[in-house]
């Protein structure tokens, strides 16, 4: 009788053990990325003010300001609307994005001077966002399925234990061949990112400072992007963040793009 019970138990144990052995670095990388992504999801809708400081190699600083609203659409593409506040000549310019988890996003640009909504080609992944060290793909291409993943180790970064993984863009026209991420073990929060360019050199280092928790959602207050090749730097400062602000799809149309946020 005991043998009869022991056999299925033995088989189940073997299956469980083999599945553990099958946890490849790729699977582990994907799981860590999913856990990190989960810290950002569930916000329903969000509004936030952004200030971007662009610092030249000589230390001169130029400032940009904008406001962004985002609508989370579980299992669908998120919608976002960014309106530029500074510099004064672009005040009121708006960018509406329907993110596509796998392909190209759909984007519309509103030019207030001309009262014109213009469709824009969103293949421009590697172009500089408003002249900064951030590219469009740094800002928008964060969907899990746009990358493949691989866990490459674990490290202590500034005294915090982190997973280290690499992700590889699987969409076309990326400016990167590899993105290396340090994600904290405790809360699965991004701490540092290194971007490797198409010539296989490390191009930029991104650091995340001051994470805050809003219910179950984590949001960062400051992101710094250092270009190692040009020695330019861009800093994104977030302010007036509001989570679950009651937005719906009608706030993300070409008509709402033409109205001040």
């Amino acid at each position, binding site marked *: 009788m005991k043998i009869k019970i022991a056999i299925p138990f033995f088989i189940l144990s073997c299956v469980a053990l083999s599945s553990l052995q099958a946890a490849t670095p790729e699977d582990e990388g994907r799981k860590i990325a999913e856990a990190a992504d989960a810290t950002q999801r569930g916000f329903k809708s969000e509004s936030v003010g952004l200030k971007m400081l*662009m610092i030249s190699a000589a230390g001169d600083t*130029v*400032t940009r300001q904008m406001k962004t609203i985002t609508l989370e659409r579980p299992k669908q593409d998120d919608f976002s609307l960014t309106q530029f*506040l500074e*510099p*004064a*000549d*672009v*005040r*009121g310019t708006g960018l509406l994005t329907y993110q596509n988890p796998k392909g*190209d996003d*759909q*984007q*519309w640009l509103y030019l*207030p001077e*001309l*009262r*014109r*909504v*213009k*469709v*824009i*080609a*969103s*293949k*421009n*992944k*590697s*172009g*500089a966002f408003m*002249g*900064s060290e951030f590219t469009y793909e740094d800002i928008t291409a964060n969907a899990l399925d746009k990358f493949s993943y691989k866990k490459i180790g674990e490290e202590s970064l500034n005294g915090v234990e982190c997973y280290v993984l690499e992700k590889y863009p699987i969409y076309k*026209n990326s*400016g990167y061949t590899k993105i290396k991420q340090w994600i904290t073990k405790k809360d699965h929060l991004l701490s540092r990112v290194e971007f490797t*360019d198409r010539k296989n050199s490390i191009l930029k280092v991104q650091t995340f400072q001051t994470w805050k928790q809003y219910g179950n959602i984590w949001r960062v207050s400051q992101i710094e992007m250092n270009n190692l090749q040009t020695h330019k730097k861009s800093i994104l400062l977030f302010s007036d963040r509001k989570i679950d602000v009651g937005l*719906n*799809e*009608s*706030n*993300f*149309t*070409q*008509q709402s793009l033409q*109205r*001040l946020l």
Partner: protein
Amino acid sequence: MNTRHWRLLFLVLFVVLLASVSGAFSQSLSMGSLSLDYRGNLGLEAWYFPLESSDSEQPDWVGTLQSDLDVTLRSPWNLDFRANPAFYWDLESEDRRRVNLRELYLDWYKPHFELRSGWQTFSWKTVESYSPADFLNQTDQEIDLLDAPKLGEPAIRSRFLLGDALQSMLELYYLSYFTPARLPQHGNRYDFLAGSPITLETETSQFQYLSSKERWRPQGALRYKAMLGGLDFSVFYFNGYARYPELTPANPSNPLSPLTHRYHPVHKAGTFFQGAFGNWLWKGEGVYTQYEEKYTMTNFSNGKLITVDPYFSYTLGFEYTLYGIAFEAHDLGLLLEALGDSHPDASLSELDGFRAFRSHIFAGLRYVFNNTSDRSILLGGFANYRKPEFITQLKYEERLLKHFKANVELQAVYLESSSDLNALRHSGRATAGIVWYW
């Protein structure tokens, strides 16, 4: 307005601009549950025409002070008020001094409905060169010809978002009071009657309308917009006055009397679209025009009686962008558009309005530096593929410091004497401008 009024207006404007750079102003003010958002600019633009004109009264130099105020008062009841007057002050010519009320409206909006009433500026333009579909607003060609600013139209516009498909929409327009065209007057560098003894009537009360309600004849438009597989697609219908008038001697028995405007009611139906597919951005506009009643006019150069047929005009093209071409940061956009008309062979004097681009190609290159000063260079031009006729433009633009934007532009024109655009043959110009934004 007389000179005293203008001085007062500019004094007020100057004080507002001065205040705007003080710490008290921050482009947005909160007043309890209301908020006031404002922005504006003050610019100076100089034109130099190197070629001698056919009329000694046309200037070689033109200097224009321009200013724009844009104020929006927002309330918590989904009701906004907006005022956007634009000011023009020619340093020499009083004909080019005015206030254009681009916007002065109340806007009430709900998630699937919007109602806007007052002076408004609309845009149905999707192409980069000449837009046949963007006709709802009258333009002010005394201020500029190829880049004429739009005049605000008194109108009511309602928008309905249809069903769950957020990009499907119906728009209804009611244009209550017709705005006549502002055409270049005698002495203006773009006066197409330059060198001729005939001038244009300037007194708007003398203009003629083929409706007993004259300027109060109701005008309306209907537009349906949908997303079709990544393509933003609109169809529309319009009934109202043609935007360009028939020009006819004010005194029919005196062919040298000033030409007055005569406006004919017209039906227009058409479509416009734009859609991005990879690096390609396709866009186009097509408009069919038919006059309500048989439209006959006398050709004022040869006295022949002409009937204007219904016609179709279009602009179709694409934009292709090469990203990261230099230092992995610069973009180069290539533009190509074809401009056509169902009557490409007719002489312009046998047609209604401004139908000069009937067998043309517009080609352009836009080089964008993607730097912090948004530096860009645009090279573009129209070419007629049936006869030698070229209008080219080279424009450089850059932000200086935080609040200024500078531009330098060269426009070169080559036209045969038989060209429909012959009046522009001396209008090649160099432009330099600087605008202070606040």
